[in-house]
């Protein structure tokens, strides 16, 4: 047990979490707006992406900027099995995840002897190799054309059709379950021997080595867990959106997004990716739906009829990646510990002391 306070979740945050979960479960039953459901599904997906990257990047300190490799692998294997062999996705996804984990461990065994920036470079190179293979292996992946999901077979349980996937609701619940699972696993890892060892590796690899931590083993475990959920999220994305191609699931932008979610929210914490998702998803949706330019017009900051106004209206929707870039720069320069770290520092300064660590279980459970 920790010396300074009881281990495990404190009661109040736990109750709050349960309340939030209950609301989320009830949401599709009360709200009939497909767009709202869509945004929530994107939110769940983004949370899973962030949490899964966090295991390798945040806890273990191995910054992969090539996670698109596993995301894309999950998407492609699941969809290829579905389209060419009619394998229902709830079986296909397991094949995809298994393959992704095996591939991850192979890559990890090769690249983990590299440190810091060299590891980053290798991860990018690996993802690029995957993308080029997908682009050129036309017979398997249809190359640049991509793969279109024609039909997801209806899900049958005990002879009754539960859903035929025509509405967003099954994706909502599947996404919710995925997000909850990922968060729970993350919490479990963080409060276990694995979590301690991962963080030791992040803090000082040689010191960790000298304390009995077999570096390749634990780094690969972290990567395996990370790849597991990343591939799962890729499969989910492919099934939900219904179309994938090398540019959308294997590109550097995808890899950067994985990192961005955690950087913005706060690396190495459980709440961080959730926060990052809560910031990024509404932002990109607002951009896409022209909400941002509409807001600027309504506030009178810019006049809709002027050249600037027209320009904004036409282009802000596509400024997705530009905003990402600006966010990354701002966060790195001014909030390298993410929003969470920044808030923590503010709080500590207000209490007038250097930030002492709160027990990790309680602080990271909410």
């Amino acid at each position, binding site marked *: *047990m920790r*010396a*300074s306070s009881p281990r495990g979740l404190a009661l109040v945050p736990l109750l709050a979490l349960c309340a939030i979960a209950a609301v989320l479960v009830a949401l599709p039953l009360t709200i009939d707006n497909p767009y709202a459901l869509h945004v929530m599904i994107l939110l769940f997906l983004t949370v899973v992406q962030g949490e899964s990257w966090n295991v390798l990047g945040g806890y273990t300190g191995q910054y992969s900027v090539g996670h698109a490799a596993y995301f894309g692998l999950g998407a492609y294997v699941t969809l290829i099995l579905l389209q060419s062999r009619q394998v229902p996705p709830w079986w296909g996804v397991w094949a995809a995840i298994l393959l992704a984990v095996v591939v991850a461990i192979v890559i990890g065994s090769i690249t983990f002897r590299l440190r810091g920036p060299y590891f980053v470079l290798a991860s990018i190179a690996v993802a690029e190799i995957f993308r080029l293979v997908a682009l050129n292996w036309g017979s398997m992946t249809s190359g640049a054309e991509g793969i279109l999901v024609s039909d997801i077979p209806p899900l049958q349980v005990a002879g009754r059709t539960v859903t035929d996937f025509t509405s967003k609701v099954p994706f909502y619940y599947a996404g919710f379950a995925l997000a909850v699972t990922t968060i729970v696993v993350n919490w479990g890892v963080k409060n276990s*021997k694995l979590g*301690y060892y991962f*963080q030791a590796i992040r803090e000082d690899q040689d010191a960790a*080595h000298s*304390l009995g931590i*077999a570096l390749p083993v634990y780094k690969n475990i972290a990567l395996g867990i990370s790849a597991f959920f990343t591939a799962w999220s890729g499969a989910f994305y492919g099934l939900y959106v219904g179309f994938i191609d090398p540019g959308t699931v294997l590109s550097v932008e995808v890899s950067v997004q994985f990192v961005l979610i955690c950087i913005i929210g706060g690396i190495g914490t459980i709440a961080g990716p959730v926060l990052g998702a809560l910031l990024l998803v509404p932002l990109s949706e607002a951009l896409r739906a022209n909400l941002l330019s509409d807001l600027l017009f309504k506030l009178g900051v810019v006049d809709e009829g002027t050249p600037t106004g027209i320009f904004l209206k036409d282009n802000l929707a596509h400024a997705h990646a530009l905003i990402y870039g600006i966010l990354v720069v701002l966060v790195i320069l001014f909030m390298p510990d993410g929003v969470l770290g920044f808030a923590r520092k503010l709080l500590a300064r207000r209490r007038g002391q250097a930030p*002492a660590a709160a027990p990790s279980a309680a602080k990271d459970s909410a």
Partner: protein
Amino acid sequence: MASILEVSHVSKFFGGLAANSDVSFSVEEGAILGLIGPNGAGKTTLFNCITGFYPPSRGEVRFSGRRMNGLTPDRVCKLGMARTWQKVRPLAKMTVLDNVMVGALIHTNRLSVASAIAMEQLRYVGMDGRAPHLAGGLPIGERKKLEVARVLATRPRILLLDEVMGGLNPAESEEIIQLILEIKSRGITQIVIEHDMKAIMRISDRIVVLNSGEKLTEGLPREIGADERVITAYLGQAFDGH
């Protein structure tokens, strides 16, 4: 008493440079061996060779009769040989308690057990009150003690201390000396690299002197203190400035 560690004709080459050259000595179980020599003599390199960070280019290291060449540092630690670092290495963003728990987790999978072991070691070095503090914010004296507590949590049979008194004031150094003697009373063998001559003379049962990668001599503290060659090695170093 039996020798717990035997270093036989160990050499380590980096390209053309011989950082260690034909070094041999043995350490009796439960004893404290002082390892001294001017800067650049190869003391830390020797530690790295013994604990698996470098494989020796030549020679052999035997721990309780078992050949250690080529074992990885984590294996070495699991077998009971642990080391501290010349430039102290706290796991900065983790708490003091978590730091020591990382050490304790080597022999258990349960956090509760590791936590108990960790608190025990922290009490031993007098830092249990600092448990929730972030390791990165500690002053140097406490960092050194933390590193000792952390490494003790791995339940070593032999402990290699690399300039554990480096950068400490006399009061802090005295605390460390007492700690080393207490560790000895627990039956743990120690090899201590140190520049503080008075301290080494006080605590060591035997002393090995390295110079320019080679073993210059070894013997009892009073023999070493009187040895002309040792004095010259240090003085020569001071005049050359190397």
